[in-house]
């Protein structure tokens, strides 16, 4: 199914104030892949993600989602295909109660009432948040907000999920639950994050960005072992691969 493909070719973007954020990024994601996008603060991760669902239109280069290159014309199609989960769920949850929020997208798609209801309940049950449906979003905990934000995107049945730092400011258990949840998804997923341990758990492939360019793109395990590469990308080994803080011993992996 070629419509789950994301192709980015020599993408460049400079913010109107003159900050160059992307200086020629290229990669190709195929159906069902879960890919991590890592890199230093300001490397351009968020800017790149904003291109994938048409929040930003390429200044130079090309983005293709499925069969369509991203242009103003194909925008509605692209937005239906790509679902974006924001870093701060507060940005995403603006309706008075959770149910309305999750129903917002499907309603705007013009679906009939019953379908909407089914989609909403379905999305909420996938993230395990059915019991929250009548609560106002601004009274939820951090982890709950995150789940609802994901549900509000899932209810639009996107084929590709784009997430910006989904584990930020979650407590360890909520983080773990999120990871388990994402593992069950069969979507094509691209995650920008600083949480390299999550990357290790979720993503087979990793793309390292540095100053708006792709520094490396390959199997997660190899990239996250390459200390030189990590260092140049302002990263470090995932914590679980680092030495034990007490005895200082390196972990040997058979």
């Amino acid at each position, binding site marked *: 199914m070629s419509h789950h493909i994301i192709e980015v070719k020599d993408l460049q973007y400079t913010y*109107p104030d*003159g900050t160059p954020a992307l200086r020629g990024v290229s990669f190709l994601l195929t159906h069902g892949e879960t890919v991590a996008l890592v890199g230093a603060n300001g490397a351009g991760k968020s800017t790149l993600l904003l291109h994938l669902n048409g929040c930003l239109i390429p200044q130079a280069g090309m983005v293709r989602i499925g069969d369509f290159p991203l242009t103003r014309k194909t925008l509605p199609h692209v*937005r239906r295909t790509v679902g*974006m989960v924001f870093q*701060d769920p507060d*940005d*995403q949850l603006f*309706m008075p109660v959770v149910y309305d929020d999750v129903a917002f997208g499907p309603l705007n798609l013009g679906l009939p009432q019953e379908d909407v209801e089914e989609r909403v309940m379905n999305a909420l049950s996938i993230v395990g948040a059915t019991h929250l449906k009548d609560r106002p979003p601004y009274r939820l905990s951090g982890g709950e907000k995150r789940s609802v934000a994901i549900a*509000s995107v899932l209810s*639009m049945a996107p084929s590709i999920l784009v997430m910006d730092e989904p584990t930020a400011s979650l407590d360890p258990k909520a983080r773990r639950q999120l990871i388990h949840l994402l593992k069950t998804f069969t979507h094509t997923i691209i995650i920008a994050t600083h949480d390299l341990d999550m990357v290790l758990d979720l993503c087979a492939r990793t793309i390292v960005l540095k100053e708006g360019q792709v520094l490396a793109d390959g199997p997660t395990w190899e990239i996250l072992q390459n200390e030189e590469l990590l260092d140049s990308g302002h990263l470090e080994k995932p914590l679980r691969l680092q030495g034990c803080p007490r005895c200082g011993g390196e972990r040997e992996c058979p």
Partner: protein
Amino acid sequence: MANIESSFLDVSYLDTLSYQTTIIHRLDPRIKLITTLFFIATVLSFGKYEIAGLIPFVIYPVVLIALGNLPIAYLLKKVLVAAPFAFFVGIFNPLMDRAVLVQLGPLELSGGWVSFASIMIRFILTVTAALILIASTGFNSVCMALEKMGAPKSLAVQLLLLYRYLFVLGDEASRLTRARSLRTFESRGLGFKVFTNMIGQLLLRTLDRAKRVHLAMRCRGFDGEIRVSRPLKIGGRDLGFMLGWSGLFVLMRLYPIPQWMGGMVAELLK
């Protein structure tokens, strides 16, 4: 204010321009503020049918733009964007005031057209002057200047904080609109109800933030007064700038330089 989002970027860009270190940028902000105000007042003091006398005043923005290394195309674009109100009110002049004022051979110009042209020239001059002030001084320095010149402290502090959080909240708002636009199709879901929810949401977050900012200030000894230690000094060069320009403005106001030059050319042609 049609496109606020791009206005925000403009703020950010103008702000970037003000970080340069040209001669103009290094002048004392108070001097630039006063000179700008004097410039505007002089330009506006001309009669409504004045055109020729206004033209020499172009020299002020031209020189400042050149010396301050400011992008002229960008400034002109900004002026154009702001033009509609002056244009729509001014365009009534030709309709109401049809008496012939100037006759150029067979061409008859009514007073309305002359005064309309005058309005547009004033508009360009005054707006450019204000934009140059901000692009060559920076907003924070203008605030400091205002405060030093006797504006109430609470107003100056207001301006500083407003400017500081403009960017933070602007980001928040643009993320909210972005999130909405991703889930709206064929402009469904852009209605009033959703809008007020978003504004309400943004307001709640703003109030929370204001509370946190206040706490942070209190934690560092804030007692209702903001103290800033940044001495401003007016030197000889600053005074020279102000007096030189003001003198020139007065001269250009008093003497119709274009008429002289035109007259001279006419003499020569004869």
